[in-house]
């Protein structure tokens, strides 16, 4: 069977979703696409069930925060892998901080369950339709999303470390 190259894969996706591949590039040879956030679920479902592409493995889901990128502050990144055709690809869906919801992938890949919980835990991205969207790594009582780039590197008001013992004030 002939190997699919990035161009062929991209063409197949663009044929099926002509308006939804907003941007594409190939950093280090890895086909990376920005797709319409509301179509992310549909595209990944299509990729998995496509007879020729057969993208059967979800490697990872991650979040990114771009606080300066107004209107598209958050990104959800899907890393996908086709074991049959031995290629990987990366999909990015951008979300506004005011509408930080995206459809869950749990109905396509069971493995998405914990990955989405982790992304929710650290970035507060809501995966609509997720069966059990709770924090997974941090303590349940935490009331913020720690990986967002909106916190000072060190909080000057905290009292749980006494600066005198660490040489950090000049008293």
């Amino acid at each position: 069977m002939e190997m699919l190259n990035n161009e062929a894969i991209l063409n197949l996706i663009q044929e099926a979703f002509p308006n939804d591949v907003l941007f594409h590039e190939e950093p280090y040879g890895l086909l990376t696409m920005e797709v319409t956030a509301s179509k992310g679920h549909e595209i990944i479902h299509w990729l998995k069930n496509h007879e020729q592409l057969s993208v059967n493995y979800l490697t990872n889901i991650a979040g990114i925060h771009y606080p300066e990128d107004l209107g598209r502050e958050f990104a959800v990144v899907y890393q996908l892998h086709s074991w049959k055709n031995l290629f990987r690809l990366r999909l990015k869906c951008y979300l506004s901080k005011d509408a930080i919801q995206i459809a869950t992938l749990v109905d396509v890949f069971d493995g998405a369950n914990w990955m989405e919980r982790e992304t929710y835990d650290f970035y507060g991205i809501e995966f609509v339709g997720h069966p059990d969207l709770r924090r997974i790594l941090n303590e349940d009582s935490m009331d913020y999303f720690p990986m967002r780039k909106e916190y000072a590197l060190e909080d000057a008001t905290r009292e749980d470390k006494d600066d005198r013992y660490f040489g950090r004030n000049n008293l």
Partner: protein
Amino acid sequence: MGKIEDLKVINGEGYQLTTLDKAIGLARANSVWPLPFATSCCGIEFMATMGSAYDLSRFGMERMSFSPRQADLLIVAGTISKKLGPVLKKVYEQMSEPKWVLSVGACACSGGIFDTYSVLQGIDRIIPVDVYVPGCPPRPEQIIDGVMNIHELVKNESNRRRYSDEYKHLMNNYNIEIEDGNAE
């Protein structure tokens, strides 16, 4: 004094006189059952301390107790995340009196290098600590030194420490319930 003279006459060589408190303290100090709550690199150093080269069993401590019910000494070695905090407190609460806590390494003592949102900045925020061992990680010699200090406490503290007002006040500060010593 006459009685001692009598004893000397009766028993001859090979006996010792002491107070019951001291005898119990000595027995306790040389048969401490530690519960190793080891989470990271300090735990590896503790394993070396337990091993044949440093040999903690010289001090009657070869029997690790992985049940808090039977342990006398809680050895916390390693980073304790905030999520793990309630678990550690539960383990401490399940230990029966008398009990001591040895905090091994910078992380257990103060959070260490992990000055971050997810790490408990010292286990003394949730449970009282008897002896702190500094170091990142401390060498086995330092851990043994900490254990020796625990032994000194065990030998010299009152056997009825748990009934003292100071102890009750301390436990109250940590919101830990203790059995009432006055209840018959």
